[in-house]
């Protein structure tokens, strides 16, 4: 059974239809990249999966729960899917450790000591255990993004959604973040990412999904997508990279 299942998803902002009937199944452990031009609907699609965007038609099931259910169901669902943002979105008033501990203590009611141990473990996973007591403002962009990953992991999610997580970083900081994502992929985490890092997508992903004008235009394993694109739009998109 797929972990995430989208069926005939439609979304519009007023008159402007940005998703025009998307169907996509994502299996547990699968690593998928959504690629395509700006405005093709990649980020919107990603944000629909954990209910940050509403949609007008179609359905999204995550581990059997519908995103459109009650607010309580949606909160439960969000605990199962982590999200990492382009702008990191760390909480500036909390230390790195507290950033990671917040959701386990507040949402899952994990005890303080247990949550701290968990936070240290997750920060260790992204190589930042020593920054436990630092504030986000004292970290580089790359470090902040790795903390954001640790924060998402602390909820022990079934899948991670990554929304252009290296786009706001200076070029020399991109690799430390990608290295963490690569490790997660190796460990079997289900990952859905919107990315412009084509080389990385090719190396890590099981499947690439090319979106064009609100539709899934073409998809397949990286070799196929890169070496034998069938549609003119994908050829043109890859030519621009």
């Amino acid at each position: 059974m797929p972990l995430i299942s989208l069926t005939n998803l439609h979304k519009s902002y007023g008159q402007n239809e940005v998703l025009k009937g998307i169907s996509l199944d994502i299996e547990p452990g699968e690593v998928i990249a959504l690629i395509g031009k700006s405005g093709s609907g990649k980020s919107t699609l990603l944000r629909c999966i954990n209910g940050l965007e509403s949609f007008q038609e179609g359905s999204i099931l995550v581990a059997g729960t519908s995103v459109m259910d009650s607010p309580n169901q949606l909160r439960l669902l969000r605990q199962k899917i982590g999200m990492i943002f382009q702008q990191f979105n760390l909480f500036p008033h909390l230390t790195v450790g507290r950033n990671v501990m917040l959701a386990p203590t507040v949402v899952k009611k994990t005890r303080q000591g247990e949550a701290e141990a968990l936070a240290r473990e997750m920060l260790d996973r992204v190589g930042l255990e020593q920054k436990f007591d630092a504030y986000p403002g004292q970290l580089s962009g790359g470090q902040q993004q790795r903390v954001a990953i640790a924060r998402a992991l602390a909820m022990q999610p079934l899948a991670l959604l990554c929304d252009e997580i290296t786009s706001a970083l200076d070029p020399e900081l991109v690799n430390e973040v990608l290295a963490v994502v690569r490790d997660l992929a190796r460990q079997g985490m289900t990952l859905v990412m919107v990315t412009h890092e084509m080389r990385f997508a090719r190396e890590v992903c099981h499947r690439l999904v090319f979106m064009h004008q609100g539709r899934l235009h073409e998809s397949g394993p990286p070799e196929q997508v890169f070496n034998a694109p069938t549609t003119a739009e994908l050829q043109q998109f890859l030519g621009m990279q």
Partner: protein
Amino acid sequence: MVYHFEFGALIPYIPVILHGVLITVELTLFGTVLGIIVSILCAWARSGGPLWLRVPVGTYVELIRNTPFIIQLFFIFFGLPSVGVHLNAIDASILAMVINLGAYGTEIVRAGITATPRGQREAGASLGLSGPQIFRHIVLVPALSRIWPALSGQVVIVMLGSAVCSQISVQELTYAASFIQSRSFRAFEAYFVVTALYLILALLLRQILRLGGKRIFPGGKAR
């Protein structure tokens, strides 16, 4: 004619002055703490609370911000007894100050809440936090740190405004000044000293709020 200053004439009244300082500090302390709590609750109601709360809170804010403090105070002290609510002068003053600071503070705190980047709420939501949890753990503290200087200014205004409470016979600092000058006829000296004391109190209060802000809001300025 030359006026001979004689500050020595105030010496017998030092206990009256000190008592006045104490009462002014007491009014300010209660007025500020409770007023800030009211500000936060009303700011939450106005920015993210249920619709049925927004209208009454909005009415309260506009009503208070568009009427004089002294009238609000008189209404509470002289008006409310007619409908059976009797408050002593100090309680009436604190209530008036809380209501007054609450209204101005609501708008100040609300500005801080509105300036919260959308991504902060989204990050909280995507971790499974509920709306009230997001407000309490993610939005509130950075919002307060953003507007702390403005709120501090309003607190000082309220402290200085407490001078008006002498009008309902609260024996605070301004009351002490009028009392002394009516007894000693040393108006210049009495008001000079009291003015200086207000100045010192205001500067102290600003300093306390500044240092307090540094303690409460570590991690530097919120975006």
